[in-house]
């Protein structure tokens, strides 16, 4: 079961308790000691500190100065921030559906008892491991550069290319392509999900005269919706936080003309290049709220399209 499935079922499940529970508290807290420390010192503490800082002006040089909701008011009028949100939304809502669609399509093709499954799976999965590295971003910068690989290839067909990365209208697309390129990880998850569909259901549908397409759309797809949902939630959260590739390809600026200025990149620039820590903290909390809202929408909408077979 996935982490999401776990969360879903927790509401309905009773956790065992009783007389034995007391005797194990000490042992449990000992085993959880590192985790509790981490939760306090690394996660929740900084989260709350970050919430406080978002109401302050803080440049690291002098102590934080409380300024109320000024940072948030500044955010409303910050054009670069609006632009960075637009860039991020575009990236998330184009690359994730395309990536998942491709992942699902290939998983379905691979699942049809084709020989060489594990070989293909490896080939398609490898980019997922490489995709977030600086090395691949370096490669992308060359491949989509003015004299890069793509333009050399286009040249063979007599097509005049352009500097895909230096042109503001196409720079973001190269990053979207990079994210789509890493469809292997969700594909493996889809494959695992497809394996769990009882063969019996498909046989029953076949005996009842369902065509290939009917079997896919009426049996396979509904049974796969929890996995699609899981992939969707995770990939959206993940894509909202993309940073490295845009940073490398734009040399840390989010250029050209802010066209690859991801929200996280702008946050980094405000906080760690301009040392505008209070503003960065406010931006970070706003990001958390955005991700929270989209995750909540996803969960709410899942009632209408996700089918749980239990």
């Amino acid at each position, binding site marked *: 079961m996935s982490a999401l499935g776990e969360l879903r079922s927790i509401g309905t499940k009773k*956790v065992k308790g009783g007389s034995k529970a007391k005797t194990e508290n000490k042992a449990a807290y000992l085993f959880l000691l590192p985790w509790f420390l981490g939760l306090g010192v690394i996660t929740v503490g900084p989260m709350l500190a970050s919430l406080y800082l978002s109401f302050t002006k803080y440049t690291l040089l002098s102590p934080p100065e409380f300024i109320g909701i000024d940072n948030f008011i500044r955010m409303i009028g910050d054009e670069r921030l609006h632009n960075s949100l637009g860039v991020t939304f575009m990236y998330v809502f184009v690359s994730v559906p395309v990536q998942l669609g491709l992942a699902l399509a290939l998983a379905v093709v691979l699942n049809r008892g084709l020989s060489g499954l594990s070989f293909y799976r490896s080939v398609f999965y490898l980019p997922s491991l490489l995709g977030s590295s600086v090395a691949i971003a370096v490669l992308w910068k060359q491949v989509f550069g003015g004299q890069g690989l793509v333009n050399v290839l286009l040249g063979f067909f007599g097509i005049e290319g352009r500097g895909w990365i230096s042109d503001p209208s196409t720079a973001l697309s190269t990053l979207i392509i990079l994210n789509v390129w890493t469809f292997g990880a969700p594909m493996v998850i889809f494959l695992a999900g497809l394996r769990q569909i009882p063969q019996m259901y498909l046989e029953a549908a076949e005996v009842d005269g369902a065509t290939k397409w009917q079997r896919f759309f009426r049996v396979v797809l509904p049974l796969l919706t929890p996995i699609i949902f899981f992939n969707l939630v995770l990939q959206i959260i993940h894509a909202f936080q993309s940073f490295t590739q845009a940073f490398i390809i734009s040399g840390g600026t989010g250029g050209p003309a802010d066209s690859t200025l991801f929200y996280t990149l702008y946050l980094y620039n405000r906080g760690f290049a301009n040392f505008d820590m209070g503003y960065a*903290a406010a931006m970070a909390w706003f990001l958390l709220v955005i991700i929270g809202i989209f995750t909540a929408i996803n969960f709410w909408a899942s009632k209408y399209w996700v089918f749980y077979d239990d």
Partner: protein
Amino acid sequence: MTDTQTRTSAATEAILVSRRAVDPNWRKLAARRARGRSRPKALLKHALLIVTGLLMLYPVLWLVVSSLRPTDEIFRNPGLVISNLEFSNYTDGWTTLSSPFSVFLLNSVLVVLGCIVGNLVSCSMAAYAFARLNFSGKKWWFVIMLTTIMLPIHVIIVPQYILFSQLGWVNTFIPLILPKILATDAFFVFLMVQFIRGIPRELDEAARLDGCGHPRIFAQVILPLMVPALATTAIFTFIWTWNDFFSQLLYLTKPEMYTVPLALRAFMDATSSTSWGPLFAMSVVSLVPIFLVFLFGQRFLIAGISTTGGK
């Protein structure tokens, strides 16, 4: 499987059996279908998959091939055939920055090892508690643990950076490794919880009857049985830490402390159009460990993301 599900599948099975009895061709038909329809169609599928695979790997293969070519050829030759092997990119690239590339590799290895050990120890301990022990508030701690998987790092990074920099930990590996020692990679806790749940409880009970306390049950019964989950954790930690850029960018600012991703970035910023060859060569060097881990740890990677859906 729930009760209703068992019943419906039993019913389906009964229907199937009766149909099979009626139609003698059923088995033959099903077998042919299972083989993937006709031969040309399967061939077409293979061709399509191979083309897609090649298309995906082509940029990476080209990177490797190009790193063995003179720089001016990189910008005109899209082919994958090397006419004259050229290793000078590697020797040049190794020494382009202020320290030789081996320094950055060593730094990355140290960070990665620290993170692996930290994750293995702390996450397995937490997982044991969540999977096997009863304690007050367990349900809610577990929910909190699962929620932190989805928490963006940005919401904690500003105060964390302030804290670590005031402790004088900038330009040390502590800010990168300490969070792992404190089990903040909840993803792995969850992965291990799932795994431990699959280990028969009778084994714990037997050990308990023999007088073992929880530390011994954990160390001598559970840990040896959860080696696959530990391997998955080690491998994912390796890849994620090796590729990690954001936190290393924040905490490591001195060139001699640079890890491989930071070195590559510095290399690229210093690169004029003439030294793409050495840059490509060092990019390849930085990908080799990932590729090796992928090659030898594939089984654990696939199992890991199949059960928990990591990336």
